[in-house]
Structure formats: structure tokens, C-alpha cells
């Protein structure tokens, strides 16, 4: 079925920016503060209050536009988007319609080994609405409560071209976009917290046809997984409807996470007429080439560049490079560690393996963890020196993670120094051989696995500290004697 049809997907992403203050007033951004404690006449929509543009919002917008290979507008302007909703203090949103700050860009994803450019139609600045709290669901609650702390938070809206062709490509686009934004440090991009929001537009058409099919919009996507699932569902729904000869309605649908379906949001009311017009309270913004260059100079290495660097300089695989460049914090950690101990592949394994496991388990960010690039480097050096084995290192690492102590201290305090004294190990080997005649026989009879058991016994007797290489060697030597 899917061979007959092609999916055409476009994504609209809203990014909450991490400025100090709101877009058009001096209220601080708040997270989890008491309701309505970060508000002023402006973001309360009180009479006589007027907006004043936050310079940092413009800087972040230019930065983001450049990172997305966009053309930065020389002249841009704010427009009012007029509609009534209880979380909108003035019942209009300050946004940008005709003259957005950036346009005609792209970002690259890698789909099945092939690099593909997804076009970015526009990036524009706008402000967020407040928060509504319902008793239960919005459909059944008898009343709602309005908290305007979030009202006026600066947002960037990033609209892609409909160049995405599959749900998988869609989540790859989101991953790439997210890592770019994280690298720019303009947002913390947490979909679960709402600082990164995504609406999807999807249609299908018979392969080869140029004309686009009827499009539906999907809202309420709270994770990359929801995005993929919702798109899969919706594409299937479109195709089934078309095959049946049914009619597809252009509408907005919401993704129901519990039931894993999209539901129509069509209400009795007519389509919105936003009556956009230029906001008379805000003079236009002129961005000269000098300003653009100043911002361009502040651009950090972006994910794609970092990937290239990791692959070419350190010979890491593209898989590893991808994982290490999903977040700037992870990349910075990795780079700092490599700077102290030049074993990038080993470090990559530890970062993507044990460190990530512990971070996830403890619901922590890498920037908050107690392991530092230096301490990881130090631990790996201990491994190299043979002071600890790989297995012991995992124990040490977990302790480093929990306590922040230096690896040397942990090894010393817990007596974890690897036993590499051959005579000491030989003594244990002899004991184990003597204690397990049947197993020894099995091994001599050809059962390789029996060796593993014996190695295990030696490790156990040495409390894991025996150097496994030496144990293996000595055991084989002893067992090969007649």
C-alpha cells in the first residue's frame, strides 16, 4: 500500500527561548513559580500597557536563522494575530506574518546513509500564551484556572517545507533541529516540559503525482515517539480513506496518546480569521549585514560540523558521532575528556555506555553529574596502567558517579587495586584447580566453557581484583600441563 502512495510531511515547531526576560516586558521567565507571580501590566493585558522588544530575542532569532542556513531579513516587523482565548491576556498574540526574521533555509538529516536536505520555510519571533489548568480534561472540566506567568515568554516558530517523506524522517528532523538548538544554547528543548512543541502537517498522494493531497494538521504531540506514531496512524488513515473512495477533510486533529489515534478537533465554530495587521506599538527591526556578521561570529560549532570533526579527527563511526553530538553538553564533556586522555573511541564507549546508563537511571543531565571529564580520564589511565580491570572500572565509575570522589581515592579506599602479581594469582589458580577436578577434566576433554567457570572461581576468590588476562593465561598454562 505504501508503495502506491507517498507521504508529504511538514513540521511546525515552537521553541521556548531561554532568555532572562519575556519577549515584550521585563518580567523574568519562571519555572514552577507561584501562579501569576511573574507578571506585570504588559503581560497581564492591562489597559494602557505597551510592549518593548527584548534585544536578546532578536539575537537568538538571528542565531537560529543562521544555524539553519536561512536568509536573515534586512527588514522585519511584528504583526498582531487576533483571536480570543482565556490564556491570551490581550486576546491577540504579537507574532510575525509577512516579514519574518529569517527564511529559505534548510537542515540536513541522514536517511539510510543518504544525506537529505529538509527545507526551512521560515523562522519568526512571537510570544507565548499563559497556562490553563483544568479539572480533569479540557472537555469535561466545569471551569479552568489561568496562570499568566508564561504569557509573553519569547518563542521562535520554525516552519519546515513539506520535504519530509516518512515518520522516521520526521523524528530525525526533530532530533537534528533539537541538537542544533541545544548547541546554540537558545533553549533547553524539552518536549515533555513544553519548551519544544511540534505540530505536523501531513498529506498523501499517489507516487509520481505532483499535486498535493488534502492535508490534515496534527496537534498534541508530546514526544518524538508520539510524532512518529501519530504520523504513521494518520498516513494509514489517509490511505485507507482514499482507497475506500472516501473524502478527506482538511482539518486539525489531536493525537490521543492513550488510544493511539488522531481525533478530529472540528468545532461548531468557523475557521479562525486572525485579522493580522502590523502592531503599531512596535517599530520595525532593521538588521544590517554588520549585525548579522556579529552574530555569525558567535555561532558555536554546530552538530553537523562536530560530527564531521569526530569522524575525521578521531575516526569514530557515524553512529558514535551522532550520539555524541545530540547535545552540546555531552560533546563538551567528550572533547574535554579526550583533551586529557587521547583515546576517543574508549571515551566514546564510556560516555555512551556507562555514563548515559547512570544518567538515565538517575534522571540527571550530564552537566549536573559528579563525574567530570578529568575524573573519567584519570580512571581510564588507571585502566591503562593495569591498576584496575575493565570490570572493576565499572564499579569504580559508579562510585565516582554517586560520590564525586576521584578514582584513585575510590580504588585506594575500597582496596580495588588489581592483583597483577603472578605468584599471588598462581597460588589462587592452583587452589581452584585443586578444588575442581571434575571441571578440570571437562576442560581437558575439550569443553572450552569449563575454563570460563574456572576463571570465574579465581575472580571470585580474588574478590574480582585479579587481572583477568593473567588469570586466563596462568590457568591455560597450568591446565595444559599433562
Amino acid at each position, binding site marked *: 500500500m505504501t508503495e502506491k502512495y507517498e507521504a508529504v510531511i511538514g513540521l511546525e515547531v515552537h521553541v521556548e527561548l531561554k532568555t532572562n*526576560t519575556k519577549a515584550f516586558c521585563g518580567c523574568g521567565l519562571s519555572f514552577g513559580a507561584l501562579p*501569576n*507571580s511573574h507578571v506585570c501590566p504588559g503581560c497581564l493585558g492591562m489597559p494602557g500597557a505597551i510592549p518593548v522588544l527584548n*534585544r536578546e*530575542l532578536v539575537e537568538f532569532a538571528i542565531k537560529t536563522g543562521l544555524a539553519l542556513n536561512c536568509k536573515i531579513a534586512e527588514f522585519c516587523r511584528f504583526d498582531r494575530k487576533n483571536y480570543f482565548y482565556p490564556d491570551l491576556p490581550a486576546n491577540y498574540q504579537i507574532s510575525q506574518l509577512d516579514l519574518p526574521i529569517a527564511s529559505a533555509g534548510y537542515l540536513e538529516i541522514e536517511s539510510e546513509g543518504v544525506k537529505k536536505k529538509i527545507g526551512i520555510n521560515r523562522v519568526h519571533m512571537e510570544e507565548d500564551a499563559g497556562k490553563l489548568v483544568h479539572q480533569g480534561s479540557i472537555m469535561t472540566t466545569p471551569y479552568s484556572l489561568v*496562570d499568566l506567568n508564561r504569557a509573553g515568554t519569547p518563542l521562535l516558530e520554525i516552519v519546515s517545507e513539506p520535504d519530509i517523506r516518512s515518520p522516521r524522517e520526521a523524528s530525525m528532523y526533530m532530533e537534528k533541529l533539537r541538537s542544533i538548538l541545544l548547541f546554540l544554547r537558545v533553549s533547553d528543548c524539552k518536549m515533555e516540559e513544553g519548551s519544544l512543541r511540534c505540530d505536523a502537517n501531513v498529506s498523501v498522494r499517489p507516487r509520481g503525482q505532483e499535486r498535493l493531497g488534502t492535508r490534515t494538521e496534527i496537534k498534541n504531540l508530546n514526544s518524538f515517539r508520539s510524532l512518529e506514531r501519530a504520523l504513521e496512524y494518520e498516513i494509514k488513515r489517509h490511505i485507507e480513506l482514499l482507497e475506500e473512495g472516501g473524502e478527506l477533510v482538511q482539518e486539525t486533529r489531536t493525537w490521543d496518546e492513550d488510544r493511539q489515534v488522531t481525533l478530529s478537533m472540528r468545532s461548531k*465554530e468557523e475557521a479562525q480569521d486572525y485579522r493580522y495587521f502590523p502592531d503599531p506599538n512596535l517599530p520595525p527591526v532593521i538588521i544590517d549585514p554588520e549585525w548579522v556578521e556579529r552574530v555569525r561570529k558567535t555561532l558555536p560549532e554546530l552538530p553537523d560540523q562536530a560530527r564531521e570533526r569526530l569522524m575525521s579527527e578521531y575516526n569514530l563511526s557515524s553512529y558514535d558521532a551522532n550520539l555524541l553530538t545530540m547535545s552540546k553538553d555531552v560533546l563538551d564533556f567528550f572533547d574535554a575528556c579526550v583533551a586529557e586522555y587521547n583515546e576517543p573511541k574508549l571515551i566514546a564507549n564510556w560516555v555512551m555506555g556507562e555514563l548515559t546508563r547512570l544518567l538515565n537511571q538517575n534522571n540527571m543531565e550530564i552537566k549536573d553529574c559528579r563525574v567530570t571529564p578529568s575524573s573519567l580520564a584519570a580512571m581510564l589511565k588507571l585502566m591503562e596502567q593495569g591498576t584496575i580491570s575493565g570490570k572493576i572500572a565499572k564499579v569504580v565509575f559508579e562510585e565516582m558517579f554517586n560520590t564525586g570522589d576521584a578514582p584513585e581515592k575510590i580504588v585506594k579506599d575500597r582496596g580495588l587495586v588489581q592483583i597483577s602479581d603472578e605468584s599471588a594469582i598462581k597460588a589462587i589458580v592452583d587452589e581452584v584447580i585443586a578444588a575442581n577436578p571434575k571441571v578440570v577434566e571437562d576442560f581437558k576433554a575439550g569443553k572450552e566453557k569449563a575454563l570460563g567457570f574456572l576463571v570465574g572461581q579465581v575472580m571470585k576468590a580474588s574478590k574480582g581484583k585479579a587481572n583477568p588476562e593473567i588469570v586466563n593465561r596462568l590457568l591455560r598454562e597450568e591446565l595444559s600441563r599433562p
Partner: protein
Amino acid sequence: MALTIEEVEHVARLARLNLPAEEKNMYAQQLSSILDFFTILNRLPTDGVEPLAHVLPLFNVMRADETGPSLPRDEAMANAPLAEDGQFKVPKIV
């Protein structure tokens, strides 16, 4: 340029104005005559004229990203017609 009642109702809906039935006709008539009056503008050719959205030659009016004073919560809520837990309370949203 006579405005129909349906058009008046449409505009009233957009503007969230619940007009009493007996007033709709009055508004339809008054608005129609005002809109008629606007047609005088059609006599004036304006091709190639740039719209004047801002009367002052001001650009790039921006402020630094520094926090300013917010309202104390009690002042922010003091005029609220209905509030609960420091939030504005509204009936259900359809």
C-alpha cells in the same frame, strides 16, 4: 454596500459581541452607511503607494534582557472578577 444580518452576526462573533436580536438591524444599517461612506477612497488611485504603518521613522527600539519589576501577586490579582489559588477562574472553555 448593505450589510446583511448574517454578516453582522459573523463580525459580532469574531469580535465576541453577543448583540441582542433587536439591535442587529440597527447596527447593520449604521455600519452599512459608514461603509458606504468609505467608498470615497476608491476614487483615489494608490498603486505604488507604500502603506504608512508607523508614522515615526523609528527602528530597532529594544531593551536589554534584564529583569525589571513585576507586580506583587496581590496587585496583579486585585481586580480579578473571580480567582482561585492565585489564578483567574473562568467557566469551561469550549
